[in-house]
């Protein structure tokens, strides 16, 4: 039973990272304001939102099992307070920080209509902070940190997000520059 908890905790941790990476990628795709993979814009947003809620579920299981698992070093206080734990406090603390930022991003998104665009957007930027911290936490904590499969999964996640961020920063990101459209409208070619 305790072994099962241990595996569940590690597994859900890895799944959370994979989902989180997908959510970041989909978020950038949403921002691009164009259909992606044949999905209309609203569907890209829908998948982005759905995947983020799913990642929250896996995050909850990950943290919950770590709390219940007698082998795991996580105490209730470590869920809220980073770097306080006795065991691998640095790597574990990163997990706490990543999780708290992620929860902040999710909660403000759920309250988006009420808190207004500015606050929501400001907090949403924290995703870019939370994600690398989550990657570091995944690689630095726990018993799997030397294993090849974990490194491969992490490399896939990093590759995906880095590619999307590079796309986001590229000049071709905007669907169609408005000046070009305007020039066409006025017959200037």
């Amino acid at each position, binding site marked *: 039973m305790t072994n099962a908890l241990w595996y569940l905790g590690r597994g859900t941790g890895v799944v959370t990272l994979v989902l989180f990476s997908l959510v970041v990628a989909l978020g950038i795709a949403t921002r691009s304001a164009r259909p992606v993979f044949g999905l209309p814009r609203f569907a890209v947003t829908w998948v982005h939102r759905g995947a983020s809620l799913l990642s929250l579920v896996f995050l909850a299981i990950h943290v919950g099992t770590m709390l219940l698992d007698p082998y795991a070093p996580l105490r209730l206080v470590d869920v809220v307070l980073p770097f306080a734990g006795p065991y691998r406090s640095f790597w574990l603390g990163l997990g706490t920080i990543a999780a708290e930022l992620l929860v902040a991003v999710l909660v403000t998104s759920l309250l988006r209509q009420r808190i207004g665009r500015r606050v929501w957007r400001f907090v949403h930027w924290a995703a870019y902070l939370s994600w690398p911290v989550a990657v570091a936490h995944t690689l630095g904590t726990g018993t799997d940190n030397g294993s090849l499969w974990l490194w491969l999964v992490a490399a896939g996640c990093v590759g995906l997000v880095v590619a999307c961020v590079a796309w986001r920063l590229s000049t071709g990101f905007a669907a169609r520059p*408005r000046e070009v*459209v*305007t*020039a066409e*409208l*006025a*017959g200037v070619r």
Partner: protein
Amino acid sequence: MTATMMHPGPLLSLAAAGLSEHVRRTGQLPWQGPGGRLIGLLERAGLTGRGGAGFPTWRKLAAVAVGERPVVIGNGAEGEPASAKDRTLLTRAPHLVLDGLQLAAEAVGADDCYLYVPARIADRARQALADRAGRDRFAVTVVEAPDTFVAGEESAVIARIAGRRALPTDKVDLVVRSGLRGRPTLVQNVETLAHLAVIAHRGPAAFRRSGTEAEPGSFLATIGGAVATPGVYEAPYGIRLGGLLELAGGPATQPGRDGGKQPLSAVLVGGYHGAWLPIADAVSAPMSRAGLAPFGATPGAGVVHALPASYCGLVETARITGYLAEQSARQCGPCRNGLPMMATTLHRLAAGERDSRLPDQLARLAALVVNRGACHHPDGTVRLVRSALRVFAAEIDLHLAGRCSTVEGRR
């Protein structure tokens, strides 16, 4: 511009720059007491807003009066470059405006009172307020308006007074219900306030003696362009545009010739957000909402600008549209993207580019920007451009054929 007093109505005939002369002419402030008595007087008088929209003043006051802790703002920010009547009034009859502000504040039970004026007359306004200590019951704060076209727009006024930039904002609720910091707010043009003071003085019947049944009273007109004596004049609503031009001395004389009158080709009514009327129609068109409606025009804030036949209407419209595009607050996509391109297209047409698609492209751009902004800046610009497409249709054909009437006329 110099203003003359050829046809003074109540505002200009009562005008006095100093307080003692003002008191001599108008007497003590006619306080109306509690209970909104003034609102009833304004309803009977039929006073409408003189800032351009022409909304019944009593209805705005009544709406603001029922709210909690109302705010009253006298709006003297005259962003329109073709208009000079608000600053003329604030210079020549500041106490008439300030009387109106006090009476409006009394009528709605205002908690706060502001006067929003361009920086160059703010000191004069502060001095006038200081002179009135003892006459006034409501303290008035002077706030300086920037010299931009949209700074006088109602939501921009409120934004500026709240300490933000003077830019229009999205109106979720009516300003009379939720304006400055969410409080019910009366934003009233300074000329409207001056009329309000005169009505409190002389009663609604005297006000109704001039003007039309639907639009009673007089208004201040800024008459400019090719007229002999451009300036600010007071005239009753319903006066024909030809009569207004005569107030300003009629068409200007020919430059460098024997003193003959310049022929006019068109009149721009309502300012830069207004509409062109061909001179043949303009002469007999009454300056009123009903009278100008057939031409897609309104009296607006009383601007009348005469275009001489020697100046191309397309060139003038292109110039104005270029100015309006520059004055876009660049907040709303259709306005930010559409107005500069409308200006460019008009400039090409005016400059004689023989591309027969240009008029259609203008019409298409106009349809793309109209009704699609937080304020009426795109709508007003479209009104001007569409009227130019109608009124200068023959000129457009000439330009597309590589000619221009102003050049032909001189041959």
